[in-house]
């Protein structure tokens, strides 16, 4: 089996359904197609280079941003507008089809994740896989997340950086 699509933590495999392996091009197509996408940024993005990558991707695609844990602080210091929720709080809202979303315009149809702690993100993606059929999930981390609908593969830092750079282009 291609090691790029074995979940980074291999025991995360939960069942027959696995995420679709995506390239930046496919990921961008998903974002273009989405009506109400949301970017959820986790605490690993408090450090560079992921901090700048995340900000630039959000700006490029005009994505509403939720920061989880205490990630809000550094984004606030960089004058990036984000809404702060605990990971489990935002997941709890996302699984409710009646929730109006962070902009009050309706529930999101695509949720893009980056910078979450792998094992917790995996659990959260499992929540949405099971209980949020109304939305799709996409992960831009450098690890394959089998519980997402679509995920980047396992990569080294150099390749990942190239993937993220491509996410900033049309």
């Amino acid at each position, binding site marked *: 089996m291609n090691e790029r699509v074995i979940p*980074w*933590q*291999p*025991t995360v495999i*939960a*069942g*027959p*359904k696995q995420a679709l392996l995506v390239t930046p091009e496919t990921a961008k197509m998903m974002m273009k197609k989405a009506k109400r996408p949301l970017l959820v940024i*986790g*605490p690993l993005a408090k450090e560079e280079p992921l901090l700048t990558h995340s900000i630039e991707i959000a700006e490029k695609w005009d994505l509403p941003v939720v920061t*989880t*844990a*205490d990630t*809000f*602080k550094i984004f*606030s*210091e960089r004058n990036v507008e984000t809404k*702060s929720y*605990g*990971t*489990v*709080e935002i*997941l*709890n*809202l996302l699984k409710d089809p009646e929730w109006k979303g962070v902009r009050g315009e309706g529930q999101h149809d695509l949720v893009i994740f980056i910078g*979450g*702690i*792998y*094992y*917790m993100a995996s*659990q*959260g993606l*499992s*929540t949405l*896989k*099971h*209980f949020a*059929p109304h939305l799709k999930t996409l992960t831009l981390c450098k690890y394959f997340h089998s519980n997402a609908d679509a995920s980047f593969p396992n990569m080294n830092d150099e390749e990942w950086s190239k993937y993220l750079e491509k996410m900033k282009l049309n």
Partner: protein
Amino acid sequence: MAPKPKELKADFWKTKDFKISIGDIVSEEGIESTDESSVVMGPTQKPNVTDLRSWDMKLLERYPPFYSPFCDMCCLCTYGKCDLLNKRGACGIDAETQQARTILLACCIGSAAHSGHARHLVEYLIDKKGEDFPIDLGMDIDIEAPIMRTLIGKKPKVLGDLKEALDYLEEQMVHLLSACHTGQEGNSKDFESKALHAGLMDNLGKEVGDIAQIVALDLPKGDPEAPLVELGVGTIDREKPVILCIGHNVAPGAGIMDYLEDQDLEDDLEVCGICCAAIDITRYNHNAKIVGPISKQLKFIRSGVADVIVVDEQCIRTDVLEEAKKNNAAVIATTDKMCLGLPDKTNEDADKIVSELINKQIDGALILDPDKVGEVATKVAMRTSGERSKVQVLPDMDEVVELAKKCTECEWCDRVCPNSLPMMDAVVSTAEGDISKMEELYNNDVCYSCGRCEQECPRDIPIISMMAKIGETDLENQKYNVRAGRGPVQDVEVRRVGAPIVLGDIPGVIAFVGCTNYPDGGEEVAKMAEEFLERNYIVVTTGCGAMTLGEYRDEEGNTLYERYSGSFDAKGLVNMGSCVSNAHIPGVAIKIANIFAKKPLEGNFEEIADYILNRVGACGVAWGAYSQKAAAIATGVNRWGIPVVVGPQASKYRRLFLGRTDKEDSWRINDLRKHTEIAGEPAPEHLLYAAETIGEATVMTAKLCIRPNDTSKGRQLKLNHYIDLHKKYFGTLPNDIYKFVRVEKDIPITYKRDVMQILEENNWEPRELPQEPSLMDMKGD
């Protein structure tokens, strides 16, 4: 060991107008606690599985279960495996219900572990002391068993009385476990109600176990000045024969200490422990030492320091025998929970067992008699120690570097690390002669040494052994202390702080409990405790959590236990004891309801839990919870109305209880004083919450101490800490602050202008302060 005469603590005599009459204990305001003759039994004596279901449904309505399936499948019966992703299984179960079923199973396992432990203790101690041995916790504790009184409706007077509680909970546990069978319960909330019941039985079992060992083994009886005991790998004298006890049951360790005392050998051997057995042995005899929490286990066994390893029950590595064989240590198993395939030598002559162990005729021995364990362990350690000291058990530093050079940088050690730690980087650096990264993993148990990296390594690099060796280069700095577990909180302490806690003047009681499956080591947990201690919270702790707090020193070299008193008071750091001592945490909340608010306990669970949920600002923190016991502990205290914050690994438990602040109706409360329902507030906002970082956990913990009953003065204090901490970790005032301001007087003066601005932005209007907030007698009840 003969019981000591009662010690009359100074606090007792300071209590004003305290009168004693035969039969009742009368306080200034009225009857606090009664003998059976005058007890008015509440509606739920010995509640069955469904008797508290209506209370559970109130909690679950406000805090609906949030599920994160660990697995899409069910593989419990031969219809399966069934894939439950957006489908039902062959039995008809859906994913949500299956998660709840798994949670119930976990809570049953955890509860059974504690209660089985309690049953062992009670039977053993009755055998030793007799059924009529009095349950006497001293003059300062009259409400000896608040959980048992509430659930069983009786005050236990002698050891034999505890059996009634065990009989009751064992029956309940059979029914709960049976509900996990295929084709039983089919509703997730009803599964959760049963899980809450399993958690409650866990609380009861722990209370029985700890009370039995406190009274019969003369452990500290709520003593705030219990002595400091030694903690840390560096405190173990390696020149002496060493006996290591791992697990939770004090009996074998007590047997060893008794034998040493009888033979006048106390100065000749080291007796130390890992996990809660260590805590309880040091409560029994302060000469024993604590190696550390569960995360030390594999590293310390590998170090070869222990000549004899005595295992009892719970949280012991199941490969302990194989690991011990590698360095010629003898293993003695001591309970029916863990026999390890060893021959039963319980009825064998002690010297013959010693001979068989020393001559390697047997791999180890199962000895179900704690006194015999004491004799055998001591004799084996004394006779093998000299020879074993010549065995090199860890690689030397040159070998460590050579072993590291075998690494091919395949990354699989990183990938299988449950905590996603940079194991490979540490190995690669070591190969280059730089051990600092390995030291970082060793220090504060950032790596809790599960050993999965080694299992996966294609080059068989013994990463944990290398780390253990590197850790040995700095033993001098691995010397700490911890206050010996004091057991329950005294009634006089509850009288002193009951009002400040309920009114909010003491901003909260925070319990640091659970295991050491920390995302980034123990130091950040200790610093979190320090943060709350400095802010006048009461900090209580137990088990591995208590050890973690002891393993941190400030710049002056003092541990938290040296810096803060052991009193249950503002700025007090209260080590209650081991896992089973966790019972005293809901126990003290119950005592507040009983002693301060005069709520009768007997058969009155719902009223007590309702009081705690709405008025006692307590919050648990289990930052490294890993076990089924931890699941049961948290679920049990949740049922009493105490919220818990857990770490990111706990998302693998599959279920949290989360409130929704945007669902305003879910926060309505009944003001019992006025008999009217009014708009409430999200206090506490969640019942079981998983945080991703320690900063998030710290802020959430402060928030979860807010209660509807707070006076404006108390609310000001609580909001002041919430805002302070939010500013520290998030850089701003919390944008939900308006939800917790009922009237302008609630606003902390320091932040008045900023808070007023947030109130205006959110069209805030003042609302009524409830006088007796409650979820009881609501419409639709």
